[in-house]
């Protein structure tokens, strides 16, 4: 699946921050003023920024949430969120490594269970996959702490991809992402949810047992559906707002969506953005 995706790419959409000048593009508000080509300005009285070719030493750290909530799988879904996240992480690692760049893996819940630094090479992908296979979802999520630690441990600027369900305190998430961005890393959020978690389509009264929250609640989903969806919509809006505000790419997928479509769509979007 991943190879098929990568095959269609002529150029990696993952751009690093190398010194090899690639091209100019017109300045748009928000661009880093360090990359403004002042010589061109002097000549043309117009602002252009430089674009650089990605160096082969792009560093991509893929962080996968392995908290208990990731183990949720509804009846209609083909995969649990964890399984979907595994596939997503493996696919992204493959894409990065196929471009001769470095990919690493972090599996976390309250803290890192696995933190493999980005490396290149043929064996790196197998190692990533093996590490993913060993883990299983358990425990709670401490997203703020985890992102903070990742930003500090990754000395080399790179891309940090966070794959999870983000059923967390959004303030923590925002603080974590801010720290990542402050450390000059690029961040991409892959938000994986189950359809049931979004739509709450259960048709019968049910006793719900929380996977991370210690709670049992008997509810009639038919009576709560409307309020539940409003809460979910607000939550999703908030995450998007946070990501947008921190210039973090946000990709949402449900476990019923085909991963290749999701990746293809995202990669095409990214290529388009980077080419502007």
């Amino acid at each position, binding site marked *: 699946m991943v190879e098929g995706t990568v095959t269609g790419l002529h150029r990696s959409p993952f751009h690093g921050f190398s010194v090899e000048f690639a091209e100019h593009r017109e300045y748009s508000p928000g661009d880093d003023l360090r990359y403004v080509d002042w010589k061109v300005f002097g000549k043309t009285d117009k602002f252009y920024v430089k674009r650089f070719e990605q160096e082969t030493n792009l560093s991509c750290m893929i962080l996968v949430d392995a908290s208990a909530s990731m183990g949720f799988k509804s009846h209609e879904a083909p995969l649990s969120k964890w399984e979907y996240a595994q596939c997503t992480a493996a696919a992204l690692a493959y894409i990065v490594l196929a471009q001769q760049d470095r990919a690493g893996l972090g599996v976390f819940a309250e803290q890192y269970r696995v933190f493999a630094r980005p490396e290149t090479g043929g064996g790196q992908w197998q190692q990533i996959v093996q590490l993913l296979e060993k883990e299983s979802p358990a425990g709670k999520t401490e997203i703020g702490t985890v992102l903070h630690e990742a930003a500090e441990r990754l000395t080399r600027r790179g891309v940090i991809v966070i794959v999870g369900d983000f059923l967390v305190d959004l303030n923590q998430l925002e603080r974590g992402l801010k720290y990542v961005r402050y450390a000059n890393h690029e961040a991409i959020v892959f938000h994986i949810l189950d359809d049931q978690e979004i739509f709450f389509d259960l048709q019968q009264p049910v006793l*719900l*047992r929380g*996977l991370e929250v210690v709670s049992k609640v*008997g509810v*009639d989903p038919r*009576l709560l559906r*409307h*309020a539940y969806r409003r*809460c979910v919509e607000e939550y999703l809006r908030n995450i998007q707002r946070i990501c947008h505000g921190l210039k973090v790419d946000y990709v949402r997928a449900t476990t019923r969506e085909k991963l290749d479509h999701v990746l293809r769509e995202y990669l095409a979007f990214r290529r388009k953005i980077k080419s502007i």
Partner: protein
Amino acid sequence: MDKPELLILGLSFLDPAILLGLPAVIIPILIHLWNRRRHMEMNWAAMEFVLAALAIERRRILLREYLLLLLRMLAIALLIVAAARPVVEAPAVAMGYQAATGWIFVLDDSLSMEQSCRGKSCFDEARDVIMRLVKHAGPADTFCLLRAAQPPTWEVELAISDRQAFLQIIDQIKCRHTRNDWLACLEAVLGRTQRLREEYPQLTRFVVVIVTDAQREPWNQAMKRQGAALSSTADELARQAELIICHVGGDRESNTAITRLEASPLVCSRNEETVIAGQVTVFGNTTERPATVEWLIDGVKIGESRVDWKSPDMGTFIWSYRPSRPGDHVIEATLSDDQLSVDNRRGVVVTVHDQVRALCIDGRYSPIPFQGASDYVRLALAPESAASKTGGMEVQVIPEARLAESDITRFDILILCDVAQITPGEAQLLADFLRLGGGLVIFGGPRVQMAAYNRAAEPQGTARPLFPGRLVGIVNSPDITTGMVNTRHPIVRILAGWEEGGLTKVPVRNYLRFQPTNSVPSEIVARYSNGDPFIVAWEYDMGRGVLITTSADTSWTSLPLWPIWVPLIQEIKAWVLSGGLSARTLVCGQPLSLSMALRNVREAPTIVLTDAEGTSWRERAELVDGTWQWKYTQTDWTGVYKIEIDNANNETRQVALFSVNTPLEEADLRSQGWEEMVQKGLPGAHMVSADLINQILESPVQHGSGSGNTLSRVLLLSLLALVIVEIVIAHAGKS
């Protein structure tokens, strides 16, 4: 069908057993709890959203749950209540729980209600109807009870709401033997209704229920005598209350009663014959005629006599009796029992003296036989012997001058024969004698001084005059004879059918012309051929007087020589002696009264009364105008009432027996035409029968079929509405 006893908020239930299913209303709660245990369990990652949604919707969900539970429980309750088929028992309560009705029951307890019908008396049936109505009345209703027989008596005058106490009172009431006075009854009810409106503002409705045997005759008489007053009272009553007349008893067509019983004389001496005559009347269509009546003396059967049926509905009987013991005796005639047995007995009191004492006051006293004025009278009073103290009659003759000094209270009769004048003192003596029940006979004559007699005819202060008229002259004519005789009067009743003989055409040469006045009512018993009064009779309190305007001897008339003389004197004697005794034979409702002239008694004598039921009371006499007097008014039952007197000397002696008989108006039990009669007098009254009321009260299916079916329908429609609301609420809010 037995009437269901379950009564809740004015509702009763035809199938009350179904109400035992009411605990089923908790089934929805049990189902709810059971469903919660059966919830599917599943793991859920996004608990935060569930908890947040719950926080938002908790109140609405709880409200919905409770509402649905309540609706379901109510639906079950409605279904069960509807299935139990409720019936509205008290419309007043159904319209407003606090609405209350003031019931005024009028129970006809007159004699005719004693008649038997279908195994029990009409009176018992009437009580049953009232008790049933009370049991079915509303919880806030009040009750009064008036007994309708004369005099109308409030048994429960202050409205009470304690129905058990009211039912106990009704259960203890006995039927009286008096007659009805419907006007007095309706006036009493009207007055009470008006006071109830003021005293009990919580009463919103008044119902007067008159329970009666529908006897036609009392209503007939009330309409005849008091029609205008009856109608106006009834109009006002119809404005104040709803008027229901409930007819008890079946169709009664006949009754036999003894309607007359008389004895003559009522006062006699030992072994003197007294003749008792009576009448049996048949009311209605019946072929049964009693052949004999039985006689009882003081409760002991003595004999029988045959009833002579002169017409299909009236028979007469006669009997004679020679009492051997002095004292009061009750002579009763009885028939065999029929529909109304109380009026098959009638009694009369006869007083037997050792001797009847007569005092003749002779205005021409002479030792030579037949030279005085009183000889013919004396012989006529005691024809068995010329001696004055033999036989049952003691006759004493005194000259006029000794009247004032004589103890006339020892005598039963005073006879004045040609007495010249009556002094005021003597007039007072004679008035006292009459007032205490004595008999006075006055004959005219040549010595009579009219002015002196006329003074006695004038009122003296507050005292009534002694005589009922004035003597206005002496008539002297050779052509005058005795003439017309009023054969209805007891004195001359024996002359009925003997108009051409007897007392008519007796030559009278002289007589005193008498002019009646209105001061003392009198009756002209016989007249002369020219119309002037011949024999005048009057009643003076307990006593009686007779004036014969001609002489007692042959100085003015040859009457003493005629064969009619002795019978006439005997009849006059019997009549004047019966004055005090006529009050001993009464009709229910008439008072017993006694006047005693007790000498040297300063302390009030004690009267011991034993009534017809055998109950005794002690009361004291009162001193009125120099005589001790006593009266008793509660003669509600027939029978013999005995009075004994304890005077200051602590001697107890029997003074009087009274025989209280049934009123004649109650003997005719026929009710044909009574409805039209009542509706004339009581327009707006509702006529119902006791049978109809019993059917209504015992068969609420029929009575309550309208209200019961309507109520069940309402409940089921409510249930349907509840179910629709429940469905809507249950599905609302579910997305």
